[in-house]
């Protein structure tokens, strides 16, 4: 079977792009949304891990 190099390169670029987008979503959410709750959020019993 013919190995189409153009498509292979496109697949690698797509994969890398998705990885970067996923990491970016995680970084931005953590920095601008969840870090605001640091030390403020409570758990069900408001206690530390034993």
């Amino acid at each position: 079977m013919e190995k189409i190099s153009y498509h292979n390169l496109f697949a690698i670029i797509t994969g890398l792009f998705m990885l970067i987008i996923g990491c970016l979503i995680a970084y931005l959410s953590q920095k601008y949304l969840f870090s605001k709750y640091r030390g403020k959020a409570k758990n069900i019993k408001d206690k530390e891990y034993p």
Partner: protein
Amino acid sequence: MQEKGIINTNQFVWMLFIIITSFTAIQVPALLITQAGRDAWLAVIGGWILDVSLAVVYAYMGLRFPGQNFVQYSITILGKTAGRIVGILFPIFFLLACMFSIHGFSQLVNSYFFPTTSIMAIMIPGLFVAGYAARQGIEVIGRVTEVLGPLYLLSIVAIGLLVSPSAEFDRLKPQFDDGVYPFLIGSPLLLTFYGICIMMAMFIPLCNRPENGFLAKFIAVSLGAVFVTIIVVLSVAVFGYEQAANIHAPGLELSRMISYGNYLDRLEIIWMLLVTGAGIIASANLLWAFSLGMSQILELSTYKPLIYPAALLTGMLALTSFNSNMEQIRFAEYTFPIFAAFVEAGLEIFLFVVALVLNKRGQQYDNYRSINHGKD
């Protein structure tokens, strides 16, 4: 008190990782390769990005309604009657997932190691152990996963390294042979299996740092994605995608390929031990979540009396639902993903939108402190 245990972020990560891998280690890679062919590795990344996006919603809702899981905040948002109708779907989903998990690994043990043994003889002890672990509470399950999780991750890395001499990575080419359609179909399919980690909404209220819920989920699903990528890429590279799609458990078959002289071979038993351990602990987690959710719907003071009946119900469902291995594969390929997508994405996004529109919030931390501790 419903659940007295508290977990730390580390246990949060490993519990989610064990849940993901217990599903994805068995038949999911084969299903994914059937759908996406050589592009299955891209579908793994696509499923990962979708799951990370969904995790933002779950983590945010866990903080918007502090101290409440999704069964509880369904009732807070929608009121008692409608909230219970919506909220009960989450525990039912966990029961279904538990049935699927326990049947999957029992079938695997039966097919590969004890072909003449009744599947019931494998399933019932597994369910009993899972029920026993679930009855001990979330802290016990968390500690077990802290031991099992790293071993499991190391095992797949070791298998990957040992089997890599047999891999021919040219078999991954050509990519996008049928366009982008296979990988676009494969990504949501994998999301429905990663998505069992909506369990994070049950863990956030019990975590010592609820604000780390998203981070824990991100780490767990990323490790899970690495795990699945290794299996999928090596399966295609070793067996070719046509053959890998027809293998029941590609991870197990890969470990069978390892043979260095007469010294290092038959390593599949180590893999099997880990799959069984992870399957039982994931089932324990799912039984625990089902029982806790149902006890909150029914307003019971404790969830523990529901554990063994739930285990019995799971066993009965697992034994009577599938007449053959093929029926279970069809269930995994068609029925389960539809129901899972509805619960994991549809219901939660619906609750999120309603909470925003109606401006519903849980009891805020400052009020909570002043009410409970007389502070400020």
